[in-house]
């Protein structure tokens, strides 16, 4: 019986190769050479199509549900388009995954120039990430869905480009990632637009990256709508030039279910968005609504990762633990920060930060951070370790449209040194009504092929 299966697998593999060679005239998508794949083929045969695809090919995956037990790998193939019939009809199902950590994987060695397009299919139930691409120079992920409808434990990331250049993620949906829906790490030249993120821990994260535009996204019912973070001890640090504009961040109150060791596990549920330790970030034209802990926060590595002045945040001379040049303007804040501890159970790592945010704002009249029935819309942790003046790092908020808009400086550096937060907290809006030098930031060119 096994022998028969082996033979059958061979025949199917051969058939796949034959079809790969016979469809040169069927042009479509990115690459000129079209290779057809359909759900009747064995997994090994499909994987062989990926292995055998020539550069500049389109792997066209017909509608239907494909069942995979192993990752599908593209290695260093250049200019491959993996294209389904449509996001809702070509389904790549990894619910029976036995090998490979992720679904679609492309890991490209440094110094190689490899472009890839993924479009028009859905990924379900990967044991790890949905799509992970390391080292692309040109990556488009378009009209791709990632979700975990039948797995009890969800993978970390839906769409995860890392150490890549010229990344475009648009019109995708990610539901239920146990870390982040769309996570772009250590990359340069990024456009994340018009995606829908739901039920993830973080909807979108731009991590340790340069030159990113995040726009037109609808990130709702996650733990946190978006993060722009710079983390220590990574090959690329110094995240900067990130614009987050014209998005909606609504009702991001999902209980935090991130692995407790991860950075996102420390972000309190109910956060519209947060920036950590980046420089040059412009947040404008967004709607923050119904995020019950806080609308938007600007924090340092000391608040988000490690409070020790001689720990991880200061162990790398190239890394700046402090945020700087942040301009938050022309956003609409509605009904945020109304119940800052509602979703943050004691004992969960996120409670530490939620508690810091919340304890300064006991819901009582006269407390400086709690005004008009909610926590201030824009929070800065106020950690200052060098410089002088009220606002040495140009954390700026202007012209945000909520009539009850408030900016709060949490003075957490005072908290770390033992001063109770609610004594140190101030609400210095005047000093923070500013635009940092060099703003507005330039647009990021949309990556094209």
């Amino acid at each position, binding site marked *: 019986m*096994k*022998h028969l*299966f*082996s033979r059958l*697998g*061979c025949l199917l593999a051969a058939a796949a190769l034959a079809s790969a060679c016979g469809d040169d005239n069927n042009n479509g998508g990115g690459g000129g050479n079209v290779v057809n794949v359909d759900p*009747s083929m*064995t*997994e*090994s045969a499909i*994987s*062989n199509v*990926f292995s055998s695809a020539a550069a500049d090919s389109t792997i066209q995956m017909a509608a239907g*549900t*494909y*069942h995979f*037990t*192993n*990752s599908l*790998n593209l*290695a*260093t193939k250049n200019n491959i388009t993996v294209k389904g019939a449509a996001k809702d009809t070509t389904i790549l199902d990894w619910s*029976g*995954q*036995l*090998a*490979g*950590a992720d679904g679609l*994987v492309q*890991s490209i*060695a*440094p*110094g190689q120039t490899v472009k890839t397009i993924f479009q028009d299919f859905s990924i379900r139930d990967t*044991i*790890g*990430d949905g799509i992970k691409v*390391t080292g692309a120079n040109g990556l488009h992920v378009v009209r791709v869905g990632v979700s975990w409808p039948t797995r009890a*434990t*969800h*993978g*970390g990331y839906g769409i*995860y480009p*890392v150490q890549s250049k010229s990344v475009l993620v648009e019109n995708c949906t990610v539901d239920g990632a*146990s*870390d982040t829906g769309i996570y772009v*790490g*250590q990359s340069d030249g990024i456009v994340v637009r018009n995606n829908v993120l739901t039920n993830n821990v973080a909807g979108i994260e731009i*991590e340790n990256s340069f030159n990113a535009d995040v726009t037109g996204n609808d990130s709702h019912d996650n733990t946190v709508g978006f993060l722009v973070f710079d*983390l220590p*001890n*990574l*090959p690329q640090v110094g995240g900067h030039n990130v614009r987050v504009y014209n998005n909606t961040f609504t009702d991001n109150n999902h209980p935090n279910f*991130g*692995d407790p*060791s*991860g*950075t996102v596990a420390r972000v309190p549920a109910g956060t519209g968005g947060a920036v950590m330790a980046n420089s040059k970030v412009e947040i404008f034209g967004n709607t923050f609504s119904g995020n019950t802990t806080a609308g938007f926060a600007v924090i340092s590595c000391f608040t988000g*990762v490690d409070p*020790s002045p001689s720990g*991880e945040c200061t162990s790398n001379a190239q890394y700046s633990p402090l945020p700087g040049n942040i301009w938050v303007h022309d956003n609409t804040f509605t009904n945020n920060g109304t119940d800052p501890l509602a979703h943050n159970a004691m004992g969960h790592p996120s409670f530490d930060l939620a508690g810091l945010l919340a304890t300064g704002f006991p819901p009582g009249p006269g407390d400086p951070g709690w005004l008009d029935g909610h926590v201030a819309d824009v929070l800065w942790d106020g950690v200052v370790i060098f410089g002088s003046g009220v606002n040495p790092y140009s954390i700026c908020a202007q012209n945000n449209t909520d009539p009850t808009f408030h900016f709060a400086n949490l003075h957490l550096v005072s908290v770390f040194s033992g001063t109770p937060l609610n004594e140190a907290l101030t609400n210095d809006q005047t000093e923070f009504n500013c635009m940092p030098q060099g703003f507005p930031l330039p647009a990021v060119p949309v990556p094209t092929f």
Partner: protein
Amino acid sequence: MSIAVRVVMASALFALAACGSSSNDTCTPRVPTDDSVPGTLAEWCQVELANGEVKSLAGDVVPFTLTTPLYSDGAIKRRTVRLPPGSAASYADAGALGFPDGTVFTKSFGFREDARNAALPIRWIETRLEWKAGGVWNFVAYRWNDAGTEAVPIPGGEVVSFSYVDGDGATQAANYLVPSKLQCEQCHSESGPVAPLGPKAHWLNADYAYESGTENQLAHWSRIGILTGAPDPANAPRLPVAADPDAGTVEQRARAYLEANCGFCHNPTGNARNSGLYLWNSITDPIQLGICKRPVAAGPGAGGRPYDIVPGNPDASVVIYRIESTSPASAMPQIGRSVVDTHGVELVRQWISEIPGTCD
């Protein structure tokens, strides 16, 4: 779509022991000059199975071993290399030796139904081929038939599920991965372009029991003319046999184990370079080694543990969580291991438990 997984009971898997095939003394090596793949392993004229063992098909096929190999679900491995007649590899202290075009490596993977009983036949699953053509290394796995008489390429890979009894008498259930061609490349892109991982001076610098007698492998390769520029083995680097307690300190052996099993991705140019966790033996920065380094982008793979390595506390270390995991979501290496290497884990545990200091 049929799933390319066959759940096979141990009895069925091992019932058909590999039978010897007839060796062909007249075969001529056929080495592709590109990435095309001959339809059977026999066409390479490099190795066959005979009496349950991997047998070289020509006199210039050189078997070799490594001091500390990659663990692959407990597979027995047999390695050979053949260089084009008259050619030689150039020696390098670090990285893969400089092999010429036309070099072919084979690596065969097999299991005994009960690893404690050396009298049992080895059931050979696959033989992986790696050859250099036009300056580029190519990869493909050949899958053996049950009789061990023929192996055919399986560039798309396959998960083979079976059970066996390991050397400690424990039953192990493996979802053994015959890697797809591109999964081969995933691990073999250690330093940029794909390249061999094992044949480096520090892994080869050990004795091998050749038919002609026992000899250091670097010395043997030099003597038969397939390696030039090598120093006396005493002056060449060597990483210890991790499994041999007499071969080095716990730290030396654990670091050798981590390089062999993790370092091909976890290095400044490898596929896990984004993690900042580097496990080459040459790394000295404690943070790069994972000591008090938080996991990044590991998601659930970190197992809720705070740092990659917590000095003195293996049970709090992400590294241990990942090498003890058999879920593809968190297991390390990411591919090619579905069974826990209990002896390797024990060694890394011991090393971590001996690291002084704390993270807080």
